């Protein structure tokens, strides 16, 4: 049961996101469509990371790798002429999910800072692999000749259609994510974060559940990657660089971990700040940096945490 303030903020926020295309049309500024669509795509990536980071306590510092894999899973088939989104997007989720399972199988044997560093290591390996494969453009990356096609049903080249596809996916993710987090599977993940030894004592072998969560987060990350490639109609291995994983992590922490809606707020705040500040001064990072420090010092549970909490801590 959440406090009224949070429910209202959530609804207002989602409504606002839904109305952006209308505002863009009225003010003849289609640019806002692209800006907020990019924000929502990173929000999806941030929410997927939060599933394992906020709820599962698994601090993965290589989440951008799955965005990269998802991106390649769209660009490579397109390169060979397969433009159907119905093939590309599921492929993106499956491949990045499998990669996450493989990386998770090794990483989950460690914990704490070792886990942070080993996930970073695997992502950097994928990054260096990406920039050395010439067949797919290596560091120059690949251009997406045509956005994913959905047999004429969904025309992604139309900015508004593509916007609402992403918006729909974000809403679905929040809804399904909410179900997952409160279902038995989510409860195991959250309890494992709270007290792993106790979980083992009452009979849970937590490894398989954490690994499954890692795979799910990777798959959704892959979907975000597929969307990002369609958004920029371009992809480079630099999507997988560790600083990009750092940015997704910052969005999650800035928004507030352990809640599905925090990362959405974090993504909006971080990317809007980046856009507004960089338009204002070329030295925008000298302002953004201290801002992040202040958030950590005074908004202990992130921006979402600033809103009054419900009477009883919602587990």
């Amino acid at each position, binding site marked *: 049961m959440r406090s009224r303030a949070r429910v209202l903020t959530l609804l207002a926020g989602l409504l606002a996101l839904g109305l952006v295309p209308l505002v863009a049309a009225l003010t003849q500024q289609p640019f806002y469509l692209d800006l907020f669509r990019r924000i929502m795509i990173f929000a999806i990536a941030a929410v997927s990371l939060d599933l394992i980071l906020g709820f599962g306590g698994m601090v993965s510092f290589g989440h951008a790798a799955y965005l990269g894999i998802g991106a390649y899973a769209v660009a490579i088939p397109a390169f060979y002429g397969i433009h159907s989104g119905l093939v590309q997007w599921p492929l993106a989720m499956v491949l990045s999910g499998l990669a996450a399972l493989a990386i998770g199988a090794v990483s989950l044997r460690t914990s704490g800072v070792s886990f942070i560093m*080993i996930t970073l290591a695997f992502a950097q390996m994928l990054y260096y692999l990406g920039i*050395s494969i010439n067949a797919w453009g290596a560091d120059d990356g690949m251009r997406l000749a045509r956005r994913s096609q959905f047999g004429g049903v969904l025309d992604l080249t139309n900015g508004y259609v593509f916007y609402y596809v992403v918006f729909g996916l974000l809403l679905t993710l929040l809804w399904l994510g909410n179900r997952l987090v409160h279902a038995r599977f989510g409860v195991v993940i959250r309890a494992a974060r709270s007290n792993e030894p106790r979980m083992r004592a009452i009979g849970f072998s937590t490894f398989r559940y954490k690994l499954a969560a890692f795979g799910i987060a990777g798959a959704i990350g892959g979907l975000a990657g597929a969307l990002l490639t369609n958004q920029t109609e371009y992809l480079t291995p630099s999507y997988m660089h560790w600083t990009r994983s750092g940015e997704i992590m910052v969005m999650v922490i800035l928004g507030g971990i352990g809640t599905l809606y925090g990362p959405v707020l974090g993504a909006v705040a971080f990317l809007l700040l980046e856009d507004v500040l960089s338009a204002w001064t070329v030295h925008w990072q000298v302002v*953004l940096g201290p801002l992040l420090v202040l958030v950590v*010092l005074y908004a*202990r549970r992130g921006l979402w945490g600033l809103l009054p909490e419900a009477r009883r801590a919602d587990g």
Partner: protein
Amino acid sequence: MNWLLVVEQCLNGLQFGVMLFLMAAGLTLVFGIMNLVNLAHGSLYMVGAYLATAAVTRTGSFLAAVVFALLGTLAIGMLMEVLALRTLYERDHLDQVLATFGLILFFNEAVAIVWGRAALFTAVPSALSGHIQVLPGIRYPAYRAVIIVVGLLVALLLYVVVTRTRLGMLIRAGASNRTMVGALGVNIRLLYTVVFGFGAALAALGGLMAGPIYTVLPGMGEEILIQVFVVIVIGGIGSIRGALAGAVVVGMVDTLGRAFLRPMLSTVIGPSAADNAGPALASMLIYILMAAVLYFRPQGLFPALRG
């Protein structure tokens, strides 16, 4: 196999390892003692390099630059600890990552505002620009030999301070149980500020040694930061011995990998395939090494003996 070349490459590996140790020591000290993940350690390395370069161009003497850079970064480090990091010791690693990520952004841009974006001119001090005859047939740049000596000296100094002195005892005690040490009347806050400043000075030492041979420009800290994290994780977080061992191992593996991996590979999978896979593999080598270490010995090669 030309043995002289192998020896020279080993020397190169040792030198690169020692360079990594200079930074790793400060990071593992702060990390191990205060349980603080400090991504901004690379920024202190950069500040050290910038202060030294500015001092050399103004005074012309490398020694003056060293003193100025160490003291300057010590002060900046302590100020940073008081203003931003002091309240984060009990906080979650995540919050520390976000705060120090913010500091990276701040320092990179601040340095660009003060000194501009272009790389500064740095050169090896003339006295050390020559070569020394290490072994018959091997001429080794004097400056890099000095780096090795300085690095090993710092390792020795650190070992003595941490294990033999009262300050060292306090630091080790603080690591295992901060509240208990506080209860014993030691001003733990001041101790941590000093230790953090000391860690910053170590980073600055790394920066000012690297300045003449690498490039001094905004953002120079981040590239080496990742390699240093690899070092302290392989070595064992919090242990100075681990940092030294990890640094030398990473230095050797990375250097020898870049030098001999491709020839060795070509004997196995043929020259053309080696030409293609070699470079990529060489860049990934240290990450593969770290993943292996973490898998088999998650606590690192020489875990810090505490708690």
